C-alpha cells in the first residue's frame, strides 16, 4: 500500500472528480490518494464519488484557499 498525491488546483467541478476517478483506476485497493483542490465543491463531490464507488474518505481539510481530501482506494475500481 502506497500513498499518492493528486493536484487538481485551479480546476472546477467536475474535473477534480474526473481526475480523481482516472487516478484511482491506476491504484491498488488499500492505496491512499491525497487530492488537492481549490474548488470548494470538491468537498461534497469527491466524498460522494467515493461513497458510490466503494472508496473510503479518510480525511477532509477545508483550508483558506485549498481543500485536501484523503481517500483510501476500495476494491471496486
Amino acid at each position, binding site marked *: 500500500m502506497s500513498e499518492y498525491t493528486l493536484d487538481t488546483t485551479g480546476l472546477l467541478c*467536475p474535473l477534480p472528480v474526473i481526475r480523481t476517478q482516472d487516478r484511482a483506476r491506476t491504484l491498488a485497493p488499500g492505496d491512499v490518494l491525497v487530492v488537492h483542490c481549490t474548488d470548494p465543491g470538491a468537498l461534497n*463531490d469527491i466524498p460522494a464519488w467515493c*461513497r458510490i464507488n466503494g472508496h473510503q474518505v479518510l480525511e477532509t481539510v477545508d483550508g483558506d484557499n485549498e481543500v485536501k481530501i484523503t481517500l483510501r482506494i476500495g476494491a471496486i475500481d
Partner: protein
Amino acid sequence: MHYTGWFQEQPQLAAARCHHELSGLVEFVPMKRALNEHCPAPRRAVALISGGLDSMLAALVVQAQGVHVEGLNFFTGFCVEGHTHAIRSTRQKMPRRNNALWVAEQLGMRLHIIDVIEEYKDVLLKPRHGYGANLNPCLDCKSFMVGKARQWLEQNGFDFIITGEVVGQRPMSQRRDTLPVVARESGAHDLLLRPLCARLQPPTLPEREGWVDRERLYGFSGRSRKPQMALAAEYGIEEYAQPAGGCCFLTDASYASKLRDLWQARGEKRYELDDIMLLKVGRHLRPRPHFKLIVARDAGETRYLQGYRGHFAHLEMTSHGGPLTLIEGEVAAGDFELAARIAARFGQGRNADSVSFRAVMADGSERLLSVVPLSPNQVPRDWYV
C-alpha cells in the same frame, strides 16, 4: 457497497437493488451473452445521467424492474454546474454539488464521469444538424453522447442504453422525427431505450426480449413537466435539480454571444478549455478588436481569475478596492491606459479623480499607472460582449 438515500426507504426497490449487487459479482460476459436458465444474471443497462429529473426517473424506472443500472455523465466543458455559479460570492448559497453525482447517490448506482472535452470540439465546431436558438448543437450532441454510451456498453459488457428523452420535450433533439436520428447516428439503434416515452416508440430490443416490461414504461410527450413531477412524487422523490434545458451554457444567449466574439476575434472557430471556462466568469468588454477585458464581478470571481494571472496581461487596482481585470489579446503598452480607465469604472474609485493600477504585461514586466475613470456614457453598450 453502502447505499444511502432514497433507495433505503423503498423496500420493494431495495430488493431489486440487492439483485443488482449480484451483477457486480458476475463474471464478465459479452453484450449478447446467453441467459442461464436456472439463475439468470440481471441485465445491465447504462443510463445517461445529466443530473436533472428526466434522466433520474428514466434510470429509476428501469432499476425498479430489477435491471442493474450504472450511470454515465459526460463533461464537455459547457456543463452548467452549481460550482460554476458558486465562483461568484453572491451565489454561494447555491448547493455546491454535482447533480449527476447526487442523483447517482440517491439511486444507489455507480456513476462514471467522462471527460469528452477534446472530442466534443468536433460536435460544436462542425454540427451536421446545425445549431439551435444559440450555439447549442443539441441533435449532434445527443447522438454523440449516445454513441459514446454505446462504445462504453460494448467495452464493459452491458446490454442496453437508457436516456431520459421525452417526445416533444425539446425543440431540436427530442422531436418525434429526430429521436430516430439519435438512435441511428449514435449506432445504438434498438439498444436505446427511452423509458419515459417508450410506449410512444416502436419496441426496442430490451422490450422485445423481455429484459424490461414495456407495460411498466411510460408514454410521456410534450413540454409539460407535470407527468415527470407526478412520477417523481409517486416514487417519493421530493428533491431534484431544476429540469430540462438549463444544463448547458451553449443554450444561453449571453454565453453564446461571448463564444461568437471569441471566434471572431481569433478569425477561426477554435477553443481550449480555459477559453470556455473564462467565458463563464466576469464582465467581458471588447473596446478594440485586438483585445478584450474580463472584469471580475465580485471577490469570488477575482479569486478565480487570480489563477490566470500568469497567462494574461492584467490590471490590479491599488488605490481603491476593485476587481481584478484580465486583458486577453495582443495588447500594446498604449492600450493599457484605455483598459485601466474602463476597469476603474468597476471599482470603488469610479467617482474619484484618479485611480491607480499595477499593470502587468503577459511577459511579467510591470508598471504603475494612474488614470481617470471613464464615465458610464463613455463606455458604449457595444463594448459589452
